[in-house]
């Protein structure tokens, strides 16, 4: 018999809602975890592995571990041997960053309010941690307030604040370095060998990321250039750097560089490590950007040229914005890798997060506390890496990557 429903005509105004699926808890379990015998088996095996791993870990972390080693040395982990009476300078840098970030958030991501609020709550939560000093508590609150002020300003006058924001972003770097390094006679110089812990890790990562990014773009453009020397140099540079491990580059920077330079010139250890990281990251960045550039259809170049735009204008207004937008996921992935790779500077003797960990473990009263210490720094690395990857996913959604 013919099914009449099939032939039913829907009038144009009539819109049907999609069918919804509703499950009970048991129904959901059945559908997702135990639908066939091999799914059931997989579920059970996975659950058992989780149990076997988590139970002793949690038992150890909560009952046996002596977290005192972390609490007592918290300042070392955070800033290394940076003088205690100068730490306010780092806080000022952080507050300025919070202000800038709040402003940028209001202008560039006005719709992403909820994530912003969520982030601020986390920072407020940091102020409530049991083992930090009162000074840190106050500063975390100031940090959140600074972010809110920036956000408020940006929301109040988004157009007028665009230019100040740009200046702030450009000036932030020099200000950061001046604050942390110091400038006589206003701020006491703090030598770089006193920089350490998370502070050093962050500085290496942030400087590495921000400087290697434009450098990488230039190299990528250089590689596509029609000028043989520019192209040759770019290709040579990229391929050489990509062919050696970062540790080698760091050793080169630390040990070999002095051989080539006249003895009067002494470059700071931290600066050398930074240079090594930047040069290394730029080559990878260049390859990522090149991937983005090649994915732009030829018609985009042609349309821009046909309108009379110069080669530079075509790149700047048409090609790069699209290319960079398309490679955001890859670039963030590289940023995360770079952030973690900075731990290699411990090998050449810098006291970054990992380097500090080994000095802490050498303290007589804390010998044998490797688990606590390494778990703690692993957690720090994870928090920052995950935050970056989460932020990038949100950014992709906000920019509509993949749905051009």
């Amino acid at each position, binding site marked *: 018999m013919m099914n009449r429903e099939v032939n039913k005509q829907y009038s144009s105004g009539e819109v049907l809602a999609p069918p919804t699926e509703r499950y009970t808890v048991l129904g959901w379990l059945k559908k997702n975890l135990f639908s066939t015998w091999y799914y059931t088996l997989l579920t059970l095996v996975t659950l058992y592995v989780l149990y076997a791993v988590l139970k002793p870990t949690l038992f150890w972390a909560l009952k046996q571990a002596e977290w005192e080693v972390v609490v007592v040395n918290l300042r070392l982990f955070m800033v290394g041997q940076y003088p205690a009476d100068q730490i306010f300078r780092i806080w000022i840098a952080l507050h300025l960053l919070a202000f800038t970030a709040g402003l940028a958030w209001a202008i560039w991501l006005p719709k992403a309010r909820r994530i912003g609020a969520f982030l601020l709550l986390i920072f407020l939560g940091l102020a409530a941690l049991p083992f930090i000093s009162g000074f840190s508590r106050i500063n975390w609150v100031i940090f959140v307030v600074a972010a809110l002020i920036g956000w408020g300003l940006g929301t109040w006058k988004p157009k007028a604040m665009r230019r100040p924001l740009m200046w702030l972003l450009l000036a932030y770097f020099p200000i950061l370095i001046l604050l942390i390094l110091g400038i006589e006679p206003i701020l006491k110089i703090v030598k770089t060998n006193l920089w350490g812990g998370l502070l050093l890790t962050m500085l290496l990562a942030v400087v590495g990321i921000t400087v290697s990014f434009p450098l990488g773009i230039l190299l990528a453009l250089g590689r596509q250039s029609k000028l043989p020397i520019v192209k040759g140099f770019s290709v040579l540079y990229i391929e050489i750097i990509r062919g050696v491990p970062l540790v080698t580059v760091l050793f080169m920077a630390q040990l070999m560089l002095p051989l080539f330079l006249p003895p009067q010139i002494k470059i700071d250890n931290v600066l050398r490590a930074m240079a090594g990281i930047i040069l290394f990251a730029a080559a990878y960045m260049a390859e990522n950007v090149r991937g983005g550039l090649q994915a732009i*259809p030829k018609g*985009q170049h042609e*349309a821009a040229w*046909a*309108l*009379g735009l110069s080669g530079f204008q075509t790149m700047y*207004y048409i090609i790069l914005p*699209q290319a960079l937008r398309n490679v955001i996921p890859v670039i963030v992935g590289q940023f995360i890798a770079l952030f973690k790779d900075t731990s290699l500077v411990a090998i050449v003797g810098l006291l970054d997060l990992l380097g500090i960990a080994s000095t802490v473990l050498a303290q007589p009263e804390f010998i044998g506390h490797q688990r606590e210490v390494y778990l703690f720094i692993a957690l720090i690395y994870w928090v920052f890496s995950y935050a970056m990857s989460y932020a990038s996913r949100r950014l992709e959604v906000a920019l509509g990557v993949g749905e051009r």
Partner: protein
Amino acid sequence: MSEASVVQVKTTPEDLLNLPEEKRRAAIEQKEMPIVLAHEVHKWYGNFHVLRGINMEVFKGEVIVIFGPSGSGKSTFIRTINRLEEYQKGKIIVDGIELSRDVRNIEKIRMETGMVFQQFNLFPHLTVMQNITLAPIHVRKWPKAKAEEVALQLLARVGIPDQADKYPGQLSGGQQQRVAIARALAMQPKIMLFDEPTSALDPEMIKEVLDVMIELAESGMTMLVVTHEMGFARAVADRMYFFDQGQIVESGTPEEIFTNPKEDRTKLFLSQILH
């Protein structure tokens, strides 16, 4: 004598280039001299001889339709006029400026010629308004307000005044192509090049684009159009050129081409596309 010389061109490049600048401009304005002159243009892709001695003169205000089988070099030829393609032999003179390797000349000519592509080639990361105003602001150095005013007028002219803030991806193919036409017109070009502007469109959208092109032709714009839309050709073309295997096989008014084609290849091709 080669087949290419079927088409007789009266002006030589020397006639045009030997005139002093001002007289040259006046002569082009007066339609005594062609605004586009192609003289014995040859092009090779590797060993493949794509253009084999193209001669063409186009006077100000003329509408030229170029048609022919695929691979005949018609798109390649129209793209040599604003130097999206290089050519290896011959001369092309656009608006009195000789197309040479000189980058400044190329940019000058590109400012005076607008181009519309088969695949629209709108900039997907910019709004319709930004697509249209980008070149006027950065190449012609107009203030933003003026560029936007012109853009709105053009959008009204192509029949989509209310889409300025959308992104190209939110528009239909026909609307996108009309934005592309508005974008090219925003530079106030003297010559418009159309490279198969309706070939990538769904059938129901072809007419809306052709209507805009017909209006443009009637307003006196100089147009070179690569197309197989014979209705368009019949309605507004001053002359038609039939390309085959890198040569101009036949040229004439639409009347001559449709009612009395001289060459067998033209007859065959027309019988294939006019069904």
